[in-house]
């Protein structure tokens, strides 16, 4: 099924995977590891161009599996958390597809009988990190290798949104609210993070909120705006993650508190970082700015949503400002790591590719949008931008990079402990007493006989 959305996403997949594969080329320990990005690309393509929901779910899960192996190479616990959440999402989608296929024919990737809409939304929610189901995103992004995080937040999450795009035909206020909550949540959490990649992860969450809100309008215009923002965010966030990865490689730490004057050591890296973050923050005339403008235009008749999204935009800018100041500009006390290690040429190449793609996307978006749309609310946007930066400078105490904020992920541990209580009782049920087993059996027999009574 080819239409503008899937062709754009297919192209985006290629554009994202090539630099990511290059970035991870020399770090890869085994040949298989080098194969993973291309495998991901293959599965992503199949998923995007899937004729029906079954093929979509199969390849969505396979792509999650390849990313699982990426994360597995770095950290086992987070990889399992990611795998279980993606399998749960896949499970809901599979169940929904089976129920939708009740008539006989496999349901095409599109609208679904109303009864199954919530099931599909939850299934896609795991993939697209809707609020409550986003617990896996921050840890996975921060522990994954740089190119995996780029692919993860750049593209994998977008496949879930692609599903939502196909699913949502009529405007759904619930999804709109979810989008808004995501944007607000991301914007609040991002500036308070200590770990650079976690900061970027939460900013992904807030940008996703933008996209979901614009998809939730259910209009063609909303979908087009969402598509533009997907492209903008994918390229910008990809580059940002690669830069953060390079920082981590150079200084062996992601903690903003201990990162030093990277701008002095790597002026070019700082330049790339600026390009990406300005586009992400929504500087007018960049693809990010245009995309955000389009989204706000699409949400014309939802004043409250527009306001919250603008505030969230400011939050993102503040977060990026924090990363810039503590990551690159601050004098920062680096604990004895000597001259930072030089970055491999391939890394520079891939980052340059990303930057080039970002710039080209900006020109393309400018050309298509035309002059008057581009300059419509330049004033408002730039004011917001500058205001955010001033706010960041005026309130240093809030943004000190020495504490992390609680999040949904912390609820998992107590929930896990609570779950083990009934499990251990179930295990005590199998106590080895033969008479007890037989008693249970005969009790169940009476239940069967009661069910079959005349």
């Amino acid at each position, binding site marked *: 099924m080819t239409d503008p959305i899937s062709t754009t996403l297919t192209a985006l997949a290629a554009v994202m995977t090539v630099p990511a594969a290059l970035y991870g080329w020399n770090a890869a320990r085994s040949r298989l590891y080098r194969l993973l990005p291309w495998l991901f690309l293959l599965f992503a393509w199949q998923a995007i161009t899937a004729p029906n929901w079954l093929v979509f779910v199969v390849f969505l899960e396979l792509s999650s599996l390849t990313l699982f192996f990426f994360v597995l190479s770095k950290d086992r616990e987070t990889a399992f958390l990611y795998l279980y959440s993606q399998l749960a999402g896949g499970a809901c989608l599979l169940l929904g597809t089976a129920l939708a296929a009740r008539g006989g024919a496999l349901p095409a990737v599109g609208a679904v009988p109303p009864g199954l809409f919530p099931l599909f939304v939850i299934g896609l929610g795991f993939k697209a990190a809707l609020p409550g189901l986003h617990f896996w995103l921050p840890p996975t992004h921060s522990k994954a290798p740089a190119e995996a995080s780029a692919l993860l937040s750049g593209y994998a999450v977008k496949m879930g949104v692609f599903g939502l795009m196909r699913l949502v035909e009529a405007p759904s206020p619930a999804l709109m609210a979810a989008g808004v909550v995501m944007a607000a949540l991301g914007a609040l959490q991002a500036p308070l993070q200590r770990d650079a990649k976690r900061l970027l992860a939460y900013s992904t969450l807030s940008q996703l909120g933008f996209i979901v809100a614009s998809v939730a309008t259910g209009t063609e215009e909303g979908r087009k705006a969402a598509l533009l923002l997907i492209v903008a965010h994918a390229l910008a966030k990809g580059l940002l993650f690669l830069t953060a990865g390079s920082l981590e490689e150079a200084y062996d730490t992601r903690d903003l508190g201990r990162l030093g004057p990277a701008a002095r050591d790597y002026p070019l890296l700082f330049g790339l970082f600026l390009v990406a973050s300005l586009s992400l923050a929504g500087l007018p005339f960049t693809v990010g700015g245009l995309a955000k403008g389009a989204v706000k235009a699409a949400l014309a008749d939802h004043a409250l949503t527009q306001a919250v999204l603008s505030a969230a935009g400011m939050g993102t800018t503040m977060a990026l400002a924090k990363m810039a100041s503590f990551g690159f500009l601050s004098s920062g006390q680096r604990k004895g790591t000597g001259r930072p290690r030089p970055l491999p040429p391939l890394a520079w190449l891939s980052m340059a590719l990303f930057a080039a793609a970002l710039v080209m996307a900006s020109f393309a978006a400018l050309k298509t949008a035309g002059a008057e749309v581009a300059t419509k609310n330049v004033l408002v946007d730039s004011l917001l931008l500058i205001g955010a930066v001033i706010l960041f400078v005026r309130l240093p105490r809030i943004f000190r990079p020495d504490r992390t904020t609680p999040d949904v992920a912390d609820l998992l541990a107590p929930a896990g402990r609570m779950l083990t209580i009934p499990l251990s009782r179930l295990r005590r049920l199998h106590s080895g007493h033969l*008479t007890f087993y037989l*008693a249970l059996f005969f009790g169940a*027999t*009476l239940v069967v*006989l009661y069910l079959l009574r*005349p």
Partner: protein
Amino acid sequence: MRVHRNLQRLGALGLSLALGWWLWQGVTISPFQGITGPAARYIHGTARDTGAANVVAAILFDYRGFDTLGEASVIYTTVCGVALLFAKRRYRRSSHGLSFIVKRGMALLVPFILLYASSIIVMGHLSPGGGFQGGAVMATVTVLFCVIYGSSFEAARVSPKVKETIESSGALLFTAIGLIGLVTGGAFLTNSAAGFPRGMMGHLVSGGTIPLLNIAVGMKVGAGLSTLFYSMVKILEDPTESSPPEV
């Protein structure tokens, strides 16, 4: 602990009564209007089809002979399994057995028991009896040997290898008879159609394959049950005499 025991007993009583009540509900007692289904065919057809006088033996060894093959194999499995469970060499101990009088008395009695057992087997198709009952009686002979003379004497008198051979060849005989039916074009275990003489009903040589199958099952069950008893009893007594061959 006491309360728990009583609670358990009460629960068990409740469960069994409920199950019993439900079984009693299912019983259908309809006034008798004649025997229906395959049984009517067996009653009227036995004389003509098989020539055997005992209808139950005709059912067991001809109409539903396949069940009996399965049936005898259950015993064969149990015997082989129990012998496997107690196959350890160090298990062989045998006692002296009982007093002299009992031993001498037993020596007189053995031929009559064997005669009685073989009569049950061979006359299976005429009067109540058959392979199972005859074989079981034959097994009692070896049980008595074990009890009265001690298991090592019993093993020396009837070596386990011989019992093993009898049992397996009995089983093979049964299957061979069945295959004969298959070879001569009919189905497995065909009786008269495969050319076995039906003979005159009531005479010893009548009923086609039924007596042969009886003998096969008799061998199988007789040798089987005695091996079963021998392997379970041989770890009973105290070690005095030399150890008989290992099974």
